[in-house]
């Protein structure tokens, strides 16, 4: 078994699924299975796994719950979630609590799953997590971490209330940059060294998710927190798989939850700076052509009104400059 690429733990209450996954993955990986979250946790405590794959819908312990525990017990294991149907709450939980690497929708594609697992194994083996992470996780709600220079946080929102709140609450520790449109956001990137992005999924009636995904593609070291009014499950899956969103916050945004998320994001950003390889753990899938087209459309939408008289040319140049710097196109 020494020649196998990695150790995988699969957890599902349906034995047929476990068997099927084993058959699929056993050629490349050493596959261990458990039929419940509790059994899975017992195995995680005893053995070391590169990747843990769990179903979400299980009696007793939910998948997100199980993966959260796995994250605590074995931070270096990459976590993947099997999901068969769209329970948004469960998905948001798994994003925020267990920081899953990928969502795998059922039925999975037979040639893609082994590749994704292989990527996860590679990351787990070659980009070990900072040793401080478990402690930091436990301290998430507590003391603010100490860092050398204040982080810049970019807030993309067309309303001012949240910006005011952020400046008031965190203005001393953070540099808050407020962008009211995608155009302004892009411009802000060229002017500041943005470490954290806090964004609504819709800003000034433009979908930001495509931009966020492309941003992460080029700059995995930027930590993104997204809040949303009504997200569909597919959007969450895409934002995770292609955008590696750090936190999801449901609207209306509660200040306490936002504070926690920002603090956690700051810590994550700090860890990434201290451990250069860490960002690799947040590698994303290649953004598909559809999303790229959507983003181009967004940019076009943004550029169109600004082609009018009220926005001066230097601003447009700044946008295109920032755009080039950010996305390399």
């Amino acid at each position, binding site marked *: 078994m020494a020649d196998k690429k990695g150790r995988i733990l699969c957890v599902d209450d349906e034995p*047929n699924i476990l068997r099927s996954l084993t*058959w699929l993955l056993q050629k490349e990986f050493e596959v261990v299975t458990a039929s419940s979250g509790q059994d899975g946790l017992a195995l995680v405590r005893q053995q070391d796994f590169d990747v843990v794959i769990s179903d979400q819908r299980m009696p007793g312990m939910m998948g997100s719950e199980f993966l959260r525990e796995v994250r605590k017990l074995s931070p270096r294991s990459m976590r993947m979630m099997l999901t068969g*149907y769209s329970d948004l709450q469960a998905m948001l939980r798994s994003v925020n609590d267990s920081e899953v690497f990928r969502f795998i929708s059922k039925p999975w594609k037979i040639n893609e799953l082994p590749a994704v697992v292989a990527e996860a194994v590679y990351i787990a083996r070659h980009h070990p997590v900072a040793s401080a992470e478990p402690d930091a996780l436990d301290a998430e709600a507590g003391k603010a971490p100490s860092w050398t220079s204040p982080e810049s946080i970019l807030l993309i929102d067309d309303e001012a209330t949240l910006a005011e709140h952020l400046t008031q609450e965190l203005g001393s520790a953070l540099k808050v940059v407020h962008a009211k449109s995608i155009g302004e956001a892009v411009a802000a990137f060229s002017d500041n060294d943005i470490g954290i992005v806090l964004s609504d999924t819709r800003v000034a009636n433009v979908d930001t998710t495509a931009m966020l995904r492309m941003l992460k593609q080029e700059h995995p070291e930027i930590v993104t927190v997204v809040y949303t009014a009504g997200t569909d499950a597919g959007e969450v899956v895409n934002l995770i798989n292609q955008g590696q969103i750090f936190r999801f916050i449901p609207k209306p945004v509660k200040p306490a939850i936002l504070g926690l998320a920002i603090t956690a994001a700051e810590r994550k950003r700090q860890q990434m700076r201290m451990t250069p390889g860490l960002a690799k753990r947040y590698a994303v899938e290649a953004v598909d052509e559809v999303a790229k087209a959507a983003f181009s459309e967004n940019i076009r939408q943004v550029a169109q009104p600004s082609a009018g008289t009220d926005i001066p040319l230097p601003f447009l140049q700044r946008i295109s400059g920032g755009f080039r710097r950010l996305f390399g196109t």
Partner: protein
Amino acid sequence: MNQGSVVFAGNGERIASNVGRFKLLPFFAVASLAMFLLVAGALWYFEREQGVFFRDVQQEQIGFFKQVQEEFAARQDSAARRDLLSIHEAGNVNLTRLFANALWERDFAPFVAKAAQLSIDACRAIADVKDEKDGKMKPPAEKKACFSEVGKKIAAFPEFAALNAKVFDTMKKSTVFKIKVFDLRGITVYSSEHAQMGEDKSTNAGWKVAAIDGKPASELTFRDKFSAFEGMVEKRDLISSYLPVLAPGTEQIVGVFEIYSDVTPFLNQIKQTSADIKKAAADNQGKVEAAATENQDKVDGAATQTLTIVMGLLGLLFGALFAIVWRAAAIIARQEKDRDRAQQQLAQSEKMASLGQMVAGVAHQLNTPLAFSSNNIQMAMMALDSYALPLQVAGTFARVVQNCDGDKVLINVLEARARIAGIDANDLDIKIPQAMLQDTLQGIDQMRELVENLRDFTRLDRSKTSRFNLNKSLQNVIYIAKSVIPTEIEVITDFGQLPEIDCNVSQLNQVFLNLINNASHAISGPGTITVRTSVEGERIRVDVSDTGSGIPAEHLSHIWDTYYTTKPAGEGTGLGLPIARTIVSEHGGEISVQTKTGEDSGTTFTVYLPIAA
């Protein structure tokens, strides 16, 4: 869309059941017609009463008028008679004066004085006797004869003839029919009817008034026969006046005259006048009565006219009201229809919502067998691909062996090694692809089970109502529900032995799915839903209990209200429980709720269904 409407067909209409709906138009028509007839009857009665009253008043007035006229006529008659009497009395007094002045001093005074010499005591001594006929004391015949003898003696006086002639001469051609002279004793000392001379009139009331009081006294009498100066006359109205004779120049009464004067023509005139008046009165009465009749007719006519107009107006009013109510009823009916339609649409959307939830759950449920079956088949196919070469080798080998005549064949190992380099003997375990296909078969079984449950749940291919065991139905519902509700929630069943009942299974499935879904919504995090069935008397009891948060008191009284929901707009229609209740009551059953909030909270919905439906 179509599917959904078929699945739960026929609930919407029944929510807004038309049974027992208030029928405005007939109710109004009957009630108001009765009221209008009552009012019309009352009006007719009062009009009639008024007519009767008017007639009575008229009769009374006619009677009064008649009485007044009669009284007036009687008074006029008696006044005329009184006037006649007093006029004649006054005339007689004057006549007596004249007569006395002319005759008394020279002729009558000595004559009366001479007559007074005759004694009448013997005659007066004769006692009066009681009359047989009227019982009054009357002088007997011999007394009258005695006084008559006195009269004869007076008549025998020598100066009588001259006096008598003088009296007759004076009184001829006058209205005086008779003249009598009495002395102060009451004896008739002269009478123009000679036979009466000597009569005693001392007891006569008229004489007494004249002789003692010195006043004249008159009375009106009627005589069939009367001897007047001109001889006998018949049927005459007479006034007889007793008049005191005073000695000339003194107030001394010296005698009494009695004068009969004839008033027949005057009295006839008076009678004629009275008759005229009576006739006029009768004519007036007749006119009054005619007028009264005419008035009565007019009043009756006016009353009839008024009544007709009022009836007509009442009819018109009824017609107008009827038209309004007719219109209103039409509008109400239309509004009700609109409301029913809106309600049906909402009921439909409620069905669609629960259907959508169910479909999502079922889709997820399908996903798991689909996932591993698809994976397994692809891998089995890959395995089959990898068997192609070994099978080809085995085939070649088999052919070589079969075609070989001897016991040995020669194999070019060098050539063969290159050809079978791709065969990994470890991969040739056929058990794995077999297991894969075996699992896939299981997956297909799972999918079939799901489809069967779905079909049992909707019962599209069955008759609407059938005899059914509710436990089976509940098992089916729980299977479907489990695919939707969170896995943290455990569904416990505790089924008792149930008899089959006649029911609309698809509708009851909807009810129980709704109750189980509601129960799962009440639970946040782990919890249990218990579905318990039992027989209680003549009914089946189904309890759906949850360990959720319970229903707060402010919502509890509203849970059966249509459109009442605590879920955000767009998520709940507020029709689930009202529809459930409608369905259960259509099955002759009832549904109730028991809930507890706070510590050890939970809610139990209990459905009772009759065994003999």
